[in-house]
């Protein structure tokens, strides 16, 4: 514990860099997966191609990706943008599937009905399909968020600062407290991100909440009936 108190400032600094490295890939993953996922939900061919590419990208070991990215981008090996870029690739790779499923979850009836009452194609997308895809998109982005927050630590192996530094340093110098603090901080950031996303979801998808509580109420009612 003594280690923690004497290094508070350093820990806080690492927390901030960790957050700075985590947020952009989550946003990029979300934004890019929307058009790709929509496309995949509209065409079977697009779906199988995009999901296969996503699957392949996700299997590239993260360390290998971090080493290759600077070569591709021509950036310095220690540039934080390498981590952001590499993790964005993972984020998109995971999120495309969720996004495709999210848009497929919008029923054809609703789509047709929106067309029938006079939504143009773009209005239908932004005012009907996107919000209705929301619950599944939200579930997907929560997974991406947790996975990104934990993957950021890998950057420390090649020297890009994050809470992962506490792992490498703690192992090198044999300070268990440092490693534990690192783990706890990563978990906390992941949990806080998740809470924020869930909160945003509750705020933006009120209809989903009522549908869910209605389903629960119906389930309760039916268990009461069967008892």
């Amino acid at each position, binding site marked *: 514990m003594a280690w923690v108190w004497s290094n508070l400032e350093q820990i806080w600094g690492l927390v901030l860099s960790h957050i700075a490295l985590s947020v952009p890939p989550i946003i990029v993953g979300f934004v890019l997966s929307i058009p790709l996922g929509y496309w995949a939900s509209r065409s079977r061919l697009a779906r199988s191609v995009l999901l296969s590419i996503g699957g392949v990208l996700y299997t590239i070991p993260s360390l290998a990706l971090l080493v290759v990215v600077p070569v591709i981008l021509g950036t310095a090996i220690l540039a934080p943008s390498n981590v952001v870029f590499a993790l964005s690739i993972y984020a998109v790779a995971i999120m495309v599937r969720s996004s495709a499923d999210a848009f497929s979850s919008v029923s054809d009836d609703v789509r047709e009905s929106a067309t029938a009452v*006079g939504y143009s194609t773009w209005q239908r997308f932004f005012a009907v399909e996107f919000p209705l895809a929301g619950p599944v998109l939200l579930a997907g982005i929560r997974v991406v968020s947790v996975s990104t927050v934990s993957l950021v630590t890998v950057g420390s192996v090649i020297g890009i600062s994050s809470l992962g530094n506490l792992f490498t340093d703690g192992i090198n110098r044999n300070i268990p407290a440092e490693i534990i603090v690192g783990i706890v901080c990563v978990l906390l950031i992941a949990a806080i991100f998740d809470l924020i996303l869930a909160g945003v979801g509750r705020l933006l998808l009120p209809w989903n909440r009522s549908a869910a509580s209605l389903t629960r109420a119906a389930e309760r009612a039916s268990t009461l009936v069967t008892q």
Partner: protein
Amino acid sequence: MIEFRNVTKRFPDGTLAVEDFSLVIPSRKTTVFVGSSGSGKTTLLRMVNRMVDPTSGTIEIDGEDTAALNPVALRRRIGYVMQNSGLLPHLTVIDNAATVPVLNGVPKNEARADALRMLDTVGLDRSLAERYPSQLSGGQQQRVGVARGLAADPNILLMDEPFGAVDPIVRAELQVELLRLQRELGKTVVFVTHDIDEAFLLGDQVVIFEQGGRVAQIGSPTEILSDPATDFVAHFIGAERGKRALSIRSTDRGEILVDSEGRAAGLLVDSVVGAQYDAGPKSRSVSNKTSQAGDA
């Protein structure tokens, strides 16, 4: 007035859904398309608001070829009600009802206020306005669907099996409600159903489709019932059986009508009763017990 002129629709996969169909749909009357599954009723309905474009032939609304109109603008001036209501699950009842005026650029508050009045019109309690569709019964959802269809005050209302998914009692209520609305509003209604009783109850003009999208008969319920064009029509409307094949039986206390099974079906009375069913050719001198369900 809506006019179909030699309309044919072949889908890209080769299905011939409609072949050389011509029909005049008079203004301010209810025209019902009735017939078996796959006979092209929905396809025809969707050609009116250009959700489907014909392969050949033209559709005119008040003399204007719809092919020349912008489809989105056209849809906003035609009401559309579908089975399972087709309400948008993420909008509240009031916002669903206000959808089309809002799309047309009416300020949201104004559109909502109008939509509230529209809920009254379709007999829906205002207390339901802030609910989501998933929190309504099937019958209530259909009423919201009708409110949405009417909200922009369109001249034309297209209804594709709007009451197909609700139970018979609620359906009877909704049918009566629609008759009342139609008396008040006088829209040009095109109504699709599988149910010949519903067709005869609601239709001023009824179009009976045969398998393959061919028209078996067009006429008022009276014309079709009194003179079925083919055996198919006679069979389809059940002219030879059940409650349509009524005969008079004398009893000690007067004459009654019995159906083909000999069950009492109604009374023969002197004057026209049930003035609310007096839409043109449908005036009846028979108080038929099946139509009394509507008086509820």
